């Protein structure tokens, strides 16, 4: 067994174990850390395959950008109210393991019995070294044969950025018909205030009524007025139930 195969085996085994960690970990943060380990190992394997530029891109884009974005999203959403956070479904896991092993066996049989067809291309290690290196050859191919594809990729990235902005916008500004609660809000008697007759406040409330709460006023009908939406609360100023009218 050559050193190359030994190094590959170590990298591949760590990558597969970390990939299993992504799928099996209960906490999404642990999954994200395992994902970073997998990506770094795959970058090392790309170096073994003489794809140095792609190894650098893998580290920059995946480990640097995508995983950090995932961790930020984990901060922003609640992950602990899922049932699987407190343990997965064991029957489902056993079935998944069996089906996965069967599929892996099928694909491995196909891989092990295959034979390479087609003529080898010109880019041997010596040819790449003569042309200046991996980055030079890749750039030359990208900007001659695939120049249209690379421009379409630029458009795809632009559209993706716009889509992210639209999706991350607050919904109140995108949904029509939703009224923002601003201005004067009556919370003591929300339905009776406009009818002119409001019931009296509960007994013993006069002190509270004349209290000096900044931003909150009481008018003569027992209606509480607030000056802005931040002062609005669901509970009444005297801590009791909302007064109901005769209706």
């Amino acid at each position, binding site marked *: 067994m050559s050193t190359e195969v030994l190094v*590959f085996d170590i990298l591949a085994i760590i990558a597969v174990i970390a990939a299993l960690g992504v799928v099996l970990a209960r906490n*999404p943060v642990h*999954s994200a850390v395992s994902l970073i380990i997998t990506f770094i190992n795959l970058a090392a394997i790309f170096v073994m*395959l003489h794809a140095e530029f792609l190894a650098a891109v893998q580290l920059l884009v*995946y480990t640097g950008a995508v995983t950090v974005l995932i961790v930020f999203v984990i901060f922003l959403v609640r992950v602990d109210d899922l049932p699987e956070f407190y343990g997965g479904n064991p029957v489902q896991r056993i079935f998944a393991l069996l089906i*996965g092993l069967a599929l892996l066996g099928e694909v491995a049989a196909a*891989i092990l019995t295959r034979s390479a067809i087609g003529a080898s291309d010109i880019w041997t290690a010596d040819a790449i070294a003569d042309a200046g290196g991996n980055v030079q050859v890749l750039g030359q191919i990208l900007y001659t044969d695939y120049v249209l594809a690379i421009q379409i*990729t630029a458009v*795809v990235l632009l559209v993706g950025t716009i*889509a992210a902005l639209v999706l991350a916008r607050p919904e109140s500004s995108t949904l029509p018909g939703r009224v923002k609660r601003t201005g004067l809000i009556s919370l003591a008697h929300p339905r009776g205030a406009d009818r002119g007759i409001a019931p009296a406040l509960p007994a013993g409330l006069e002190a509270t009524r004349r209290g000096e709460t900044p931003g909150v006023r009481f008018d003569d009908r027992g209606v509480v007025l607030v000056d802005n939406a931040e002062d609005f609360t669901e509970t009444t100023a005297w801590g009791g139930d909302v007064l109901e009218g005769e209706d």
Partner: protein
Amino acid sequence: MEELTATHFLLLSAALFIIGMMGVLTRRNVIVIFMSVELMINAVNVALIGFAWEQNSMVGQSFALFVIAVAAAESIVGLGIIMALQRRIDTIDVADVRQLRE
């Protein structure tokens, strides 16, 4: 297997892809499903670069670069959808996401 061949890389690619696929099928957390999709995309990249290395070609590496670019755009949109899900229906459990079914 004394020598390093493309078979090694293809087996690694198959293993990573199937692990990612089982993650997509069994997990209920949208974020973990998203990470499993990223795992599958990387498995395809390993296969592409392995074939390119076997054939002394650069086409596979070019395609892998496009795959990485499209995966970056996909991750932006996917994470935006997760944020919108959390804001709109207050969960990231795929079993609770039924808007298109009802």
